[in-house]
Every structure is written in structure tokens, then in C-alpha cells.
């Protein structure tokens, strides 16, 4: 049951990640921060908002602000009919949905495979990435929620 303990205490040597795919790249979100996974439906556009704001939607009576992660990461738009998913998270008491392409599995990764951001990583990515995990045959970038919102909310508030 050591894995459960780890989950509960947010163990130091291994963390569980929910993996998602955005534009072909694998990303991981710490599972403790993911509230739910849903299909974003009837999203209301918010004019004048930052480009990455996909809109607002009603998720079981709560208003969720949807953020298009492709736009956030400056990736090309997905096909119009492409399936999308969203990961529900909370930030400072507010609900957000990160719109991504697909949700993968839950991985337990130990700190051994963790590495800091490579120095040549695209600045816009490095800004929201909390490091990289070396997996078999691919790399998983850790999405750092705090930095993600820090980078988005503050410059906008200033604008």
C-alpha cells in the first residue's frame, strides 16, 4: 500500500501524473491538481479575451473558464472536427478547464527520471513547464499549473 501512502502524502520520490497529449506532445499534470476530465461542450466565446481563452462553459452548475492549451503553447490549431477533451483544475478558488487533445493514462514516476527544462527549450514552453521526465521512447513535460496561471493572469491584469 505504499503507493497509496505516496499519493496521500504527495511523496517526495515519486508523483502520479495524469498524462495528456497536446499537438502530439506528451504532457503530465500532477494528479492531485486534476479535479475532473470532461468533454467541453457548448463553450461560450468570450470576445476581447486573450487568444488562449477558448470561452466559458457550464460544468455541473459551475462556470468554468476554458483555456485552449494549443493556443497557449503556440501550436497550430487542431482540425475542426477533431475530438477534444478538457482537464478540470482549480486555481485560487476558480475553476478552469485546460482544453487538450486526448487524455492518456495515469503514471507514477519517480524523481529519478525527472530533469530540469533543457536550456534550449522554447521560452514560451519553458515558462510553464516544471521539468521533463524521461520515459521509454518519449519525453513527458510537466505542466506547472502555478506557472501556467502566473504567466497568464498577471501580464493580462497589467494590460
Amino acid at each position: 500500500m505504499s503507493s497509496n501512502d505516496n499519493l496521500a502524502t504527495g511523496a517526495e520520490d515519486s508523483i502520479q501524473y495524469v498524462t495528456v497529449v497536446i499537438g502530439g506532445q506528451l504532457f503530465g499534470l500532477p494528479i492531485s491538481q486534476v479535479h475532473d476530465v470532461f468533454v467541453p461542450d457548448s463553450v461560450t466565446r468570450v470576445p476581447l479575451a486573450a487568444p488562449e481563452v477558448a470561452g466559458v462553459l457550464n460544468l455541473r452548475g459551475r462556470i468554468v473558464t476554458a483555456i485552449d492549451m494549443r493556443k497557449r503553447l503556440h501550436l497550430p490549431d487542431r482540425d475542426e472536427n477533431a475530438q477534444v477533451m478538457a482537464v478540470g483544475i482549480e486555481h485560487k478558488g476558480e475553476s478552469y478547464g485546460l482544453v487538450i487533445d486526448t487524455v492518456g493514462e495515469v503514471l507514477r514516476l519517480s524523481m529519478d527520471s525527472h530533469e530540469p527544462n533543457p536550456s534550449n527549450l522554447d521560452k514560451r514552453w519553458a515558462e510553464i513547464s516544471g521539468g521533463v521526465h524521461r520515459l521509454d521512447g518519449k519525453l513527458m513535460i510537466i505542466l506547472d499549473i502555478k506557472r501556467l496561471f502566473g504567466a497568464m493572469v498577471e501580464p493580462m491584469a497589467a494590460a
Partner: protein
Amino acid sequence: MDDLLSEFLTETNESLDVVDVELVKFEQEPNNAKILDNIFRLVHTIKGTCGFLGLPRLEALAHAAETLMGKFRDGAPVTQEAVSLILISIDRIKEILADLETAGGAEPEGSDDDLISELERLSLSARTGAEAEAEAEAAAGPDVTTGALVEQVLERPLRPGEVSLDDLERAFREAECEVELPVEAATNAPAAEAQEDAPPPLTVKAGAARKATAEPKGPEKAEKENKSGSSVSSQSIRVAVETLEHLMTMVSELVLTRNQLLEIVRRHEDSEFKVPLQRLSNVTAELQEGVMKTRMQPIGNAWQKLPRIVRDLSQELDKPIELEMVGAETELDRQVLELIKDPLTHMIRNSADHGLEMPSDRRAVGKPEKGTITLSAYHEGGHIIIEVKDDGRGIDVERVKSKVLERGLASEAELEKMTDQQIHKFIFHAGFSTATNVTSVSGRGVGMDVVRNNVELIGGSIDLRSTAGQGSSFIIKIPLTLAIVSALIVEAGGDRYAIPQLSVVELVRVQNNSEHRIERIKDTPVLRLRNKLLPLVHMSYLLGADETDVNSELESDTGFIVVMQVGNQTFGVVVDGVFHTEEIVVKPMSSMLRNLTMFSGNTILGDGAVIMIIDPNGVASAMASHASSVVAEGERKGVEEAIAAAIDGQSSVSMLLFRAGSSEPKAVPLSLVTRLEEFEVSKIEHSNGRDLVQYRGALMPLVYIEPGQTRRSEGTQPMLVFSDAGRSMGLVVDEIVDIVEDRMNIEVGSDRAGILGSAVIKEKATEVIDLGYYLPQAFEDWFMRKEMDIAALTKKVLLVDDSAFFRNMLTPVLKAAGYDVTACQSAQQAFELLENGDTFHAIVSDIEMPDINGFEFCEALRRDPRFRKLPVLALSAVVSPASIERGRQAGFDDYVAKFDRPGLIASLKDMFSGELGIAA
């Protein structure tokens, strides 16, 4: 902190607030034993409780104050000094209580000996004045009070609306303390009303009648009231504000869910749910109303501190002030109440400090010495209106003007054209205070703008009316509640938006061929609505859609116009469709979206979709920058545009193109036109051989461009209105064609009176009219009025400008101001005139001239000792810091923009008033 203590703090704070109010009242009617008894009792209760809880410092202070009041009760004369001292003591008690609260129950260190000894001194001196018998009684006062009070308490127990079961009271009973608690005579109503102040627990009242001023009742009657009162108090309980808030949230959710259900049932015709749902809907509505009621509090709660503040101000400023309060029982949401408290206090201070004059000044103008501030509140529609009125001096327009200029909020030219009302509005600008002296009361420059912000934050508006010498009044209009608003659901650019009903005045359906169609002045869409032009903006445009798309949408010109009013601004927002109105619960937007001023929040509609709520204030400010409200500010804009254009491209000017009399287009510089108006033909009257219309309370003569010109026989007659120094002339035109910006080049001069010449405008030969010819037709003495003072008449001014247009435009302007003007077209010619011995008192010179430009001209003048001190004024289309500096170096006395006519006149005036001796 234990419950007992927190209960004590809450209660004592309430009592003290009541004491504050009562004392001020008492000072005014020292013979009213009722009030005194009430105060006495409250202070006594505080003292007693302090002793019980082991708070010696508080007890000693309360005791000393009580002793002094005991003297009053025994007939000692009430002095202002004594009342002030008691008030100070009350303040000290409050301070100690505040510390007590933060310290969690321990009395703060410190001594109140200063106050106590002062109180005792007054008590003693009061005693010497009292009768011997009373003296004896009073001497025994402190010891006896406990006993004496037992009888009195029955007559005057505590306030209504309190739970008899509360801990402290029980504690008292158990301790066999003398205070028989919960009930209070109705005579205490005014005080009671002011009770539920800041501390969180909120008393829910069982609808006990409250009056702003309760009539004093006989003792027997009061006793009766007590008996009935006890039953009232047991019907009300204290509920924590949090509980109510939570209840409110839940009801909001319920309303939303109900809406959702209704939406579903609407789609299924014969649903068996229909009937029960209808019932659910009704119950929900009632529940919502009920919960809202629990949140309602009389506005008097926000007013309770004001009498004390006014009293203190009155003493500090040495002005007798009377505060009248009307409608204190008007109820509004407590959330709103909290938010309105500070602005109100600020406004009262303002009125007392700036509004009311000193007694001597008041006497001088025949007003009673005592100034009156009236505070009134009443319901109107879904709003509550609060008015703060004083009978003081009103707002000094001139002072506001000079302050506006000083702060650079507007130019003199702009101010010139504003109405007094518009100028008054400047006091709502940030950092604006007209008080010359910064006093402790006001004048620190944070003021009305903060008030306005606070009011607007809660979706309200503030307005101001002021009559010089008679006082001013501020009118605040705020919604009753913030939680649930009625909104109009509209569609624009394929999305739905909610517009709060409160700001929607009406809906207008537009169709291409109907009475209401969208017209354009330049590219600005406007709508004729009941003889007024309403500036329009398309919602999609406001929301950032591409302008060309919007324009093509506007081309189709079908849709709805939501006429909105925000403050004094009225405008139309074009939307593609209007659905229905719906009660919505405003939910805050996430912080990522909070920077969008166009939205105030979002909500979930009945069909489950999220919808953005439009913020009317955001739209209004966007209107100001996006579109231009053509009519009201047309002229001001004209000037701005003209200047801007002049800076960009030399002498390109905004011209108003119109047709009159003949089919050739005619033009007049837009900056000269005050207003475009349309009058019903039936409104045009004929008198004394000429046509007139009533315009703004005066008769305005109409002038025709050509003798044979006929006006329309039906419908409305368009005209250009020119105003100057309070007089207006209407120039009758057939049609207003366009506003263009173009280089103005009069190529062919004209011999015909009234026409300056012809210029090519928009690739068409256009006659430029000479206003100087028409103005005297309306008023023969147009150029010989007011501004023409005798001194100016004797002043000869030389105008040097190579452009015939400007010579022709400025000559009448200068003549109108009373100067004797000679115009010449080059510096060369000017030198000739000067050499010929013509004397001039000032020279106004253009800068951009061929051969010798203005700078060179001025430098040459300055080299000649005869003209070294001659005032020379530069006139230029290019106004930049660099060019102004260049002008200064060349020796110009002043530098004025070509289109700034008032600036030119003012500058000349200054020059002559300052340098009369030299120039003459």
C-alpha cells in the same frame, strides 16, 4: 475570546452608537428627560456589565461619565462642553473596546485619568449649581443608582429585536443583576433603528414599526408598550450574516435550476410536470423574495453615524448645521448598504465643508444662519434614490473651470462650449477638489471621484444639480440588490449576451424603410429618435469584431437597437436579435477575464449555457473612445479633428458640406458650427418679417443662404446652428451632405456677398460660405457685443496670413472681439504697412508663409528697436513643443493653434491687459 465577551462587545458597540446619536439630540433639547434617561440607562448598563466582566478601566470611565449625566438628570444645566466631554469619553470607550476585541479580552494598558478628572470636575461644578436637595441625592448618585434603577428599568428596558435568550442577559439574571433585559419602549425606536451596525450578527426584525422621529409618549403609555414589546422581541432572533449569505446563494442556485426546468418544460408541450413546476416556480419566487427581505435593512442604518459627524463638523468649522433625514426607513440590501455608507459620509462632509457658507456669508445673502443638509431616500422602480442636498452656495462654475484648466482636463475652448452641468461633472474627476484650503475635513483631493467609483461599482449612478447661491444636490441612484438582476438577452455576432435591464431604456426596431433607420454622418451611425440624434454602435464592434464586417452588417440595417442610459450618456447599441428577459444571478468572472471592462460577470442561463453579462459602464466608456457621439459633441470634436488634421497635413480642414438654395455643394468649416439641428416645420414661426424658432428657451432667428431659398413645407427642416456668447443663429439648409477633411484651397475668389470663394472639395467645386456675412443678418450687432470693450476697440491688430481663407475667417472673429483688424497676405506687405507709419497694437502672424515665414518675420521685427516690444502672436496649424520653443526664440509672445479661436481672443486679451502701457 469567550462568547460572553464577544456578545458584550457587540452589544456595547451598538449601545454606544445609540448613545452617540442620542447625545447629539440631547444637546439640542436639553429638557427632554426621555432622551437623557435613555442615555443614562445605556451608559449605566455598560458600566454594570464592565464591572461584571472585570474590566476596571472601562468601568471607571463609564462611571465618571454616568455621574456627570446623573447631574443633568438632576437638573444641572447642559453645556456644550459637558456634552463634548461625554462624547470624547464615549470615543475612548470605543477605542478600549476595539483593543479589547483585538487583544481577545484583555483590557489595554493605559490610563483615563485625564478624562475622568475632567468629568469629575464638571460633575462637581454642576453640583454647585444644583439645588441642595438634588445635590444630596446626586452625591449619593453612584451608590444609589443601582437601587434606583430597578424601578426605572421597567420603564426603559433594552431595544427591540433582540433575543431574550442571549447569553449575556442570562448571565445577568443568574447574577441577580438588576437589569431586567430584553424589552424596550417604542420611544427608543429611532435609536434602535440605528443599531445593527458593523458587527457581524444581524438582527432579523419582526417588522416592528420604525419611525425616524418617534413622538415622545407618556410614561403610562411607554409602560404599556413595554408589555407588548416583550412579545415582539421574542419573535425575533439573531442570525449570523453568514447564514443569510449562504441562504441567499442557495436561493440563487434554486432560481437558476428553476429557470432550467422551465426551459425544458417549454420544449415539451403537454408535460405532466407543467403544473407542479408552475407551483415550484411560484414558491421559488416567494422564497427568493423572502430571503431578499432578510437581507433588507433600513437605510437609516447607514445614516446612524451622521448626526454625530455633522455635530462635530459644525463645531470644527464653526458653522451651525442642521441635518434633516427623510426616509430613513427605506430598505435596501445590506450588501449595498455597506458599500454606500462611506460615500454618504464623504458627501455629507463635503456638503458641510464646501457646500455651506459661513454664517456671516449666509446672513449677507439673506439666508438663515443655520445651514441645512437634507438627506433623503426613497424607492423608484428597482432603484433606491438617495439625495444629499444642501442650501449652500452651490458649485462655483468659474472655480471648477480654472481648476479644470490647471489640471489640463480640458482646454479653454472645450470649456467654453460646455454647459454648466457638464462643467459640474468635472468634480467627479480623480484628484479634483475645489476647496482652496486643505482642511482636516476635506480638500485632500480624494473625493467625489472615489464616491463616484464606489457608486458605479454597485451598478449605480450619481448625478448632480447645483444652482449658484441656492445650493447643490447630489443624487445617487443604486439598485436595491446586487444578487439577482433582470437582464435582456440579446444576440450579436452569433453569440448571446445579457444586458442588465436597469440600464436599458427602450428597444427600437430598425428597418430600412421604416421611420427608424440608421443614418450616417461621415461613417458614424446615428438614429433619429424623437427629434434627437442617438449615437449608435454595433455590439459586435464593441466586442472587437472586424470593422468592415460590422459595416456590412450595418448596411443591411435590420435589427434592434437597445437604447441604453449610463449616467447622463444615452446611446444605442445595435444587436442582431433580442430574445427575452431573464432573471440572472451575476457570477464573478475568473480572474483571467476580469480585465475585460466590457463584461461585469457571467451567468448560467435557463438552457444551461453560460452567457456573458455586458457591463453598461464598460460600454459607455468604450463608446467614448470607439464611436463619437456626433451631435452633442460634434462641435468639440470638430475642433479637435481640425487641429489634429492641421497637425497632420498642414491646412487640411474638416468641412461640413451641405446644400442650400442651389444644387452646388456649399461648405463651412466644421469648427465654426455649433450644432446640427432639425426642427419640425410647424415649429418655425414667423414674426416681424422673419422666421424664428424657439431654441433653448430663446428665439433663434433663421437665416437663408440665398434670397430665393424656400424651406421645406412639411417634416423637419435641417439647419446649422451657430452660437456665440449666448446667441444663436440657424442657417437654413436643404440637406447636410457630408463631413470631409480636405485641404482647403480657395482657388477662385468671389464677389458675391456671403461666399468667400470656390474650392475643390471632394473633387467638386464647392462654394465656401462667409459666415461673417450671415451672422449680422441674424443680429445686426453680432460683431459689436459684449466682448467688445472700449479698450479693445481702440486696439489695432495686424493680421498676417498668406491664406485668404484664414484671413477671411479670422478677420470677423477678431472684429467680433472688438479689435480693429487690418489683414495683409505676406510679411513683406506687413513691413510696408509698418514702414508707412501705420501703428498697430499687436500683430497676429501665420507661421507657414512663402518667402518670409513667421519666425523670420518676427525675428526681423525684434531687430528693429521700434517693434521690440510690440506684442506678436504666432498662429500656426503646427502646434508642437518644438515649434512653440522655436516661436519663443524668434520672439513671439504667444503661440496659438489656428483653429483655437477662443484661445486667440484670450491671448490677445491677456497681452493687452498685461502690457497696456507698452502697447499704447
